[in-house]
């Protein structure tokens, strides 16, 4: 998720150009400073799957929380 957020910030605030802090954080991705960040279908699908897992758990939590609130005095 952090990778998606960082990539989004790069796209919105830096024209998608990789800076030193992004490079340092994701050095295992074989990137270069000054290059344009590339979002491809595989990466996007990976983000979506991660988000779905996270949001499913969050929503189940919220659902249980509301149910508890409704049943508790």
């Amino acid at each position, binding site marked *: 998720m952090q990778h998606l957020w960082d990539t*989004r910030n790069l796209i919105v605030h830096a024209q998608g150009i990789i800076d030193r802090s992004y490079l340092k954080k994701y050095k295992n991705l074989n990137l270069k400073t000054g290059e344009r960040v590339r*979002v491809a*279908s595989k990466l996007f699908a990976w983000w979506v799957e991660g*988000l779905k897992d996270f949001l499913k758990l969050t*929503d*189940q939590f919220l659902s249980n929380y*509301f*149910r508890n609130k409704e049943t508790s005095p």
Partner: protein
Amino acid sequence: MRKEEYEKTMAKTKDDQSTVWTKTDAYMNFENNLDHIMRMLKMIPTADAQKHVVSLKRLSKRIFRNAKRVRKGVHTDLDRTLSDVTVELTEISAKINEFVALHNLLWDWTSVMLVAFVEAYMEEGLEYIATKNPGLLKNADPLSFESIFEVDSLADLKDEIRRQWARKTLRGAGEVGNPSRQTGCSRL
């Protein structure tokens, strides 16, 4: 939310591994938005890329054919052949560049939209929590004079307080420039 309350709800959530649950409106909104993104991605004109590959293959065949003819002495106007190939290559490369630019743009924008949709979900979720547990709003910022006069009812005023609190909670507001300020994502 009290710690015990959080732990109890979380334990119950982890125990319940079913894929069916009473989805919140916020989640249904997210699913709907995600469906739109996926539908849009299917519209990426991949057929165009295929067309460019076909053009390149055709050009490469022509180059080989002409090279053969030049070697055999059948065709001697090498300059003209090279000039034709260069023109065609320039056209194909312009089309490929255009395709790649459009492709990148679509992927970039969908990533930005994805973050916006998740943030919207989290904001709505926090608003619901605050509706059920108004005690959380004790740290909410006071509303501005303008906001108070803009709303039509007390219910709208409550909504506005919850909305502002949710936004502040999600974005990790606090003072800008405060080193302890974190982004919404890292706090999640």
